[in-house]
């Protein structure tokens, strides 16, 4: 198992003290009632559909994961090897909880599941990711997405 305490002290400190831009605003969008929410997953796990190009390093852009993706088609190309991958190998929901979202939608706990989900490479400089994240917001709105679950590794 790999918890923060299992890593060499210097690396654990870097992760815990990860720098994030010092934003001037603290945006807060009040969510709709869950039963009306259309939800998308945005992962930072470097996920990629098998037929797509893997992340090569700290790429700032994102990959699309259509809802029709099969569980044997999703790979993890995250640049870091310092987290457990055996959970994701056994069950993609450990990182990409699409089956769980679909179940919640079928039970009308949430309104619906987005047609497309997305993944970034989490080790990338957030400043470089910004234009891609804002462009992604447009795609999410075009799909009528109200809420996003952000999943790390």
């Amino acid at each position, binding site marked *: 198992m790999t918890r923060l305490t299992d890593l060499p002290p210097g690396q654990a400190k870097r992760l815990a003290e990860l720098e994030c831009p010092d934003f001037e605003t603290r945006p807060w969008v009040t969510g709709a009632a869950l039963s009306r929410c259309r939800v998308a997953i945005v992962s930072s796990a470097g996920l990629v559909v098998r037929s797509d190009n893997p992340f090569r390093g700290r790429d700032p852009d994102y990959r699309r994961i259509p809802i029709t993706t099969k569980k044997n088609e999703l790979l993890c190309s995250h640049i870091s090897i310092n987290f*457990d991958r055996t959970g994701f190998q056994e069950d993609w929901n450990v990182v990409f909880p699409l089956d769980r979202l679909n179940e919640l939608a079928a039970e009308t706990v949430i309104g619906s599941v987005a047609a497309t989900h997305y993944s970034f490479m989490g080790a990338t400089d957030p400043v470089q990711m910004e234009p891609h994240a*804002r462009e992604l917001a447009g795609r999410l709105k075009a799909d009528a997405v109200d809420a996003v679950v952000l999943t790390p590794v």
Partner: protein
Amino acid sequence: MSALGHYLEEEGIATVAIALIRAQAENTKPPRALWVPFELGRPLGPPNDAAFQRRVLLAALNMLVGDGGPVRIIDFPEDDPRSQPDPAWQPPFMPGALVDGAVASLASRLEAEILLFHGAHQRWMAQYERSTVGLSGLAIVEAARYVADWLRGKAPASPRDGFSPPLILRFAVDDLKAYCLEAAGAGTAKPSSRQLGDWLWNETATGAALYALRDLLLTQEDDRLRLIVANFIVPAARARTG
């Protein structure tokens, strides 16, 4: 994750992050975060435990309703039951000649071991209908040959257009590790990630070969190659010094 949450909220989309490192969430201040006490790599917790994963996901989704922010962090109260070792787990059978041999034969033993795991990996595929092998785009025996050739000192050309040799090496190593760990996970036992990692890095020819490859290539003059070898073959928690 926190920056992504910030950008998306500024664009009018509500977000909730699952956070594996509480100190990082406190430092980066996402709009909403559910901290989970699980190991890195498992934000939803145990594999193939739909009820547990559902509780995690609902705890996160429920943070979308109501106020309390900006910057709201809640702790998930349960730990991952799969983080405990399973004493019933047994690794795939491996002949002693594969595991115990001269360093000079590691490349050949790596290739032989990958062939040996074919049956166990087929059982994994039948059981889980899924494999995460494939980043290199090479068949697994080709990936094993590519890595073995590096260990033999050949510095082979990239077999894939648009991918440099060091990049293909990194992906081929990722594929070999995934193949071995999936093969070892086939069956009814539920090994912890530490059990699987201890086995891969301490008891297999593949693990020994990857240690040797790291040591060998760290002496090369190619800066990009040394960077990849230093950081992307052996996990930091498994690196041997001295």
